[in-house]
């Protein structure tokens, strides 16, 4: 396997793997905090039991998050040493801050998860607050590093070397704000939907615990509040790309030719040879409207860049549409649920509604992964936009193909083990997530 391809593939797979667990590591603390808070407030023990039930699988998932994150920080070194040699002094700062967030997260997670017999209920709740804040902070920090790769700042280029380094300016780069907001909210939306799906399925099978409906409502409340914010922030992100990352936007929208009154193309397969999109639906003027708030504005197309400096629209456009389509699917289901909840005045349990929640459940994670693929594929061929190409950042070591295969094996083994653990029925039938069903079936 070609060295650069192997390095890129390994980085992409590792990040795609890590982000699943990182997302849960951001979303679940919020849910824990809400559940423990509600339990203290209302005196309803079910919220507390719900939270304590989550913490078991969560411990497992957090551990995978921590070790897979460790792989990533090593990979920065053994895949991209040239990139880090130059960028480390600039993007080191957010990672340095993130390190403290990791510490706090691990500490309060340990306290919350293992402290059941040692801490009061109030203290347990209080531990979930720094846990939630630290988790969100770690995402916001690491996203700053990524945003810097998209809109590098805080240095001067001197013969290919970064000079006059200003780490604070680098951290506060232009793309950080929108990426951090959109990226962190995404974790809440994705976790909310995933959990809603689990409880909807349990309700459908009649195996939900006594707190099943409450958990469903809580999960869909978190997801339902995040989704409209996702739309707003996603729109802001696209408008940002139109000004600062034009090639990425052009690829995401499969927009080949620079023109005024650019149409929005939904779906379809962009063909770089013919510069046409096959089977897409075109809505005239809409892309210009989204990008510049003016249906007649000029939007730069892929033809505005040298051919070896554009990302591949087949990838970027497809994943962009997948993200947006997932959004509309989830938004529709969430809206239906809350409308019925409001109309009926109680938690709706019609089978059709619950099945749609189950179907929508994976799409939070699908949207999140696709969004990241848009960001990352859309930056190609640059590792640092306009400054360093991916080939210049890669390790001189040969044999990255073997390293790639090694880690693919590691991920496969971890995934198989994890699935076995989570899906296998407990030895004693009464244990596990449905264990409390005996008490009072809803």
């Amino acid at each position, binding site marked *: 396997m070609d060295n650069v391809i192997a390095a890129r593939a390994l980085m992409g797979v590792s990040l795609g793997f890590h982000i699943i667990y990182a997302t849960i590591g951001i979303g679940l603390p919020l849910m824990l905090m809400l559940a423990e808070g509600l339990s203290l407030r209302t005196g309803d023990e079910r919220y507390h039991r719900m939270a304590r039930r989550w913490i078991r699988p969560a411990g497992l998932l*957090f551990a995978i998050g921590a070790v897979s994150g460790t792989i990533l920080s090593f990979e920065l070194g*053994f895949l991209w*040493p*040239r990139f880090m*040699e130059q960028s480390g002094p600039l993007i*080191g700062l957010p990672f340095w801050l993130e390190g403290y967030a990791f510490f706090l997260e*691990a500490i309060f997670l*340990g306290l919350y998860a293992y402290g059941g017999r040692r801490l009061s209920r109030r203290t347990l709740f209080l531990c979930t607050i720094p846990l939630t804040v630290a988790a969100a902070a770690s995402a916001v920090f690491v996203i700053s590093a990524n945003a810097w790769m998209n809109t590098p700042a805080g240095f001067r280029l001197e013969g290919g070397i970064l000079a006059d380094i200003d780490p604070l300016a680098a951290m506060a780069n232009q793309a950080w704000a929108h990426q951090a907001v959109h990226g962190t909210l995404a974790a809440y939306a994705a976790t909310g939907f995933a959990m809603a799906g689990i409880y909807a399925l349990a309700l459908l099978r009649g195996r939900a615990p006594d707190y099943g409906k409450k958990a469903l409502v809580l999960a869909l409340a978190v997801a339902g509040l995040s989704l409209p914010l996702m739309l707003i922030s996603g729109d802001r992100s696209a408008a940002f790309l139109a000004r600062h990352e034009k090639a990425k936007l052009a690829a995401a929208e499969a927009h080949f030719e620079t023109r005024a009154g650019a149409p929005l193309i939904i779906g379809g397969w962009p063909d770089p040879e013919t510069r046409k999109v096959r089977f897409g639906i075109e809505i005239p003027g809409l892309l210009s409207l989204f990008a510049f708030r003016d249906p007649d504005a000029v939007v730069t197309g892929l033809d505005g860049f040298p051919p070896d400096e554009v990302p591949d629209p087949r990838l970027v456009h497809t994943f962009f549409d997948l993200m947006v389509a997932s959004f509309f699917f989830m938004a529709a289901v969430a809206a239906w649920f809350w409308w019925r909840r409001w109309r009926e005045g109680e938690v709706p349990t019609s089978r059709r509604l619950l099945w749609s929640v189950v179907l929508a459940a994976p799409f939070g994670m699908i949207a999140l992964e696709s969004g990241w693929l848009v960001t990352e594929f859309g930056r190609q061929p640059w590792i640092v936009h306009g400054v360093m190409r991916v080939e210049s950042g890669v390790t001189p070591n040969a044999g990255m193909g073997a390293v790639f295969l090694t880690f693919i094996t590691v991920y496969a083994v971890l995934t198989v083990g994890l699935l076995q653990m989570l899906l296998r029925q407990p030895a004693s039938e009464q244990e596990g997530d449905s264990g409390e069903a005996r008490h009072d079936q809803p």
Partner: protein
Amino acid sequence: MISLSDLGAAVLLLGMIMYAAFGGADFGGGIWTAFASGPRKKEQRESLFHAIGPVWETNHVWLIFVVVVLFMVFPKGFAYLFIALLAPLVIALVGINFRGAAFAFRHFGRQTGREVPPIARTFSVASLLTPFALGMTVTAAASERIRIVGGEVVSAPWAWITPFTLVGGLVGMAVCALLAPSYMTVRTEGALQDDFRKRGMAAGWTLGVLTLLEIPVAFLSAPHFAAKLFLPPSLACVTLAVAGGLTTQALLLKRKYLPAQIAAAGTVTLVLLGFGATMYPDLILGELSIDAAAAPRETLLVFFAVLPFGAALLAPSLFFLYWTFRGPPNPKTPAG
């Protein structure tokens, strides 16, 4: 006058010491899980397992700390080391992953009564492999086999395997094997406590023999390092480390567990300090100095500006964590 980059190197060494003292004990727990023996085999494993549970993720973050300090403060050193030491780093990383996952699987399996998949049995194997690979990685920086010419690493991919680094790997394992039982003596009672006491003493002797063995080996395989070992700062650390090791043995012998625990951690600290003092002023011995590896001044300034704030958040939280989980749980508090 101490330069900012020297201070950065001190923080790096501090991170390594913390990882060895805390994370090392977790790996040691894995090692003694593998070598559990005698009539209380099962109890030994159980108690190790329970002690590691709440703290391993926190202890693990020290490793991230070291990596981040390396690439922020010493980006050149990071790049060269990660190019030259690809293989041991990959091995360590695979070990870290399997160990972390296996541990979490076992814990979850126990809580929910689920059967643990076979990978969980890798816990002990990975606990042996990882400290060995990390020990080799660290000593490789002193092995004089990493060659850098004109900004390129030119040494062969396996050049880092030398008698010196092999013993270094064993030292890494012995450090872990000493710390875990020393810490366990404080948390256990009766016969079990005595089991850990004996294991701590055995590991202590092993560590002593290995570190002393490393000196003649260094003369053969890393002569510059060996020569620098007899400069006053290194010599002082080595002497103190020997004294610390003997004190640990004496305290364990007399069953003074709390001071023994501190002496064990102190010994490990001194071994690493000695290593650092001998390396100084280089990051990669003979090839890359701390100054040449360091990031521009602006980066070092923000690095140190963040440090006190971070420490102010971290220190009380860490204290609360270890304090909460210090002894056996309070039976009066209901299970959560």
